[in-house]
């Protein structure tokens, strides 16, 4: 194993991972953030950089979570958390809301995932074929519909199993949909030749990253 520098690697924590994604979202994009770590991305986009956040339940232009004493019980996001609405935000019904998603009007969707394959396949809704009460929500619509799908997830499971794979073993959410993966270890584009590493956590070498990754990685500077 060429993994000689384990002690020096500084994997990103969750806040840093969310901030890393936020850095890459330009003003003016319409963005849907999935449940879990992706939701935190919004906290790292400054309000003066106007990014318009969409939620499946008919909310466009979400702002930050309200202080506890200013909660509006009628205003939740798809994760059922209380949110606020920015000036310029609006409400619509579910079919119209998913027209935004399915009609290709979102510039970006950021989802969590169990696995991403080098072909861009994503598995993020069920961990086995016989999951009790599988729950897909809007993930398949978002994955198939948004102009860009980025995945934000830990690079490996808790037991060290790679989540970037040659081929997904879990049930798919969408085929060939992922454009980029942000993990605690790296930023990786999904291209025609497979995974291409754009950026790595401090202290990490390409070889060390490959050692933690089942799928073959390509260097971004090639």
């Amino acid at each position, binding site marked *: 194993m060429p993994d000689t520098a384990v002690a020096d690697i500084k994997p990103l924590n969750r806040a840093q991972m969310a901030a890393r994604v936020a850095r890459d979202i330009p003003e003016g994009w319409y963005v849907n953030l999935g449940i879990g770590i992706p939701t935190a991305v919004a906290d790292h986009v400054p309000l003066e950089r106007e990014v318009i956040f969409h*939620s*499946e*339940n*008919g*909310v466009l232009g979400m702002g930050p979570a309200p202080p506890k004493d200013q909660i*509006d*019980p*009628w*205003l*939740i996001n*798809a994760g*059922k958390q209380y949110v606020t*609405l920015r000036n310029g935000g609006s*409400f*619509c*019904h*579910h*079919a119209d*809301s*998913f027209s935004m*998603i*399915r009609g290709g009007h979102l510039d970006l969707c950021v989802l969590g995932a169990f696995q991403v394959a080098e072909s861009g*396949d994503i598995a993020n809704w069920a961990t086995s074929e016989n999951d*009790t*009460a*599988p*729950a*897909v*929500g*809007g*993930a*398949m*619509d978002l994955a*198939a*519909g948004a102009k860009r799908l980025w995945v934000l997830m830990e690079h490996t499971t808790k037991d060290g199993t790679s989540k970037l794979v040659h081929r997904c073993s879990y*049930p*798919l*959410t*969408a*085929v060939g949909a992922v454009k980029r993966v942000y993990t605690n270890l790296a930023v990786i584009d999904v291209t025609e030749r497979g995974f291409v590493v754009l950026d790595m956590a401090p202290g990490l070498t390409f070889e060390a990253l490959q050692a933690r990754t089942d799928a073959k990685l390509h260097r971004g500077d090639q």
Partner: protein
Amino acid sequence: MIDKIVQDMADAMAGIKDGSTVLVGGFGAVGQPNALIDGLIHQGATDLTVACNNAGVGHVGLARLMELGRVRKIICSFPRSSDPVVFETLYRAGKIELEIVPQGTLAERMRAAGAGVPAFFTATGVGTKMGMGKELREFDGRTYVMERALPGDVALVEAWEADRWGNLTFKESGRNFNPVIAMAGKLTIVQTQHIRELGEINPDHVVTPGIFVDRVLHVPYGDPTGF
């Protein structure tokens, strides 16, 4: 004089038959027609198919209806919740049928039913379990799956304002599935926070026009945290 406003829950629920498909609005606790669901529990119809985004929480509302053995099948996108014990117990015991549908496909299938579209194509679910066994077709180089309309015998809606012609408005994210199921239901029953005089709702601001509404019951329960 047209007056869709009914005076009590018995009138609101009259005629719902065993075996009905019931569409239920709401997303999370917001915009959920809790009073009407309780009314349905009392009304007694059984062998129901329920289509709703979620599959109930705790032992109240939809979960209670299921616990009483009145729901044969649930069609939803997200059966998980903070407390999905009733659904999961029934599901594991094979006592309830589950049709899991991507959330956007669920909304679009209901909208299609309301709009006279018996089937449509979508990219959602292609290459996944949701696309299995369904017709696939390529248009302009991309593969799509055919989905069928999902009409309801009954639709249960929660509105913010309503008038005697059945015109409705909704409050913020309480809109969600409600206007869509109102279109898709043969018998659309509404509980509303506020009753307005005819003409009081600005005609440019009506979200669900009365043509999609059959009965309106005044249930001024306050906000979704009140349940």
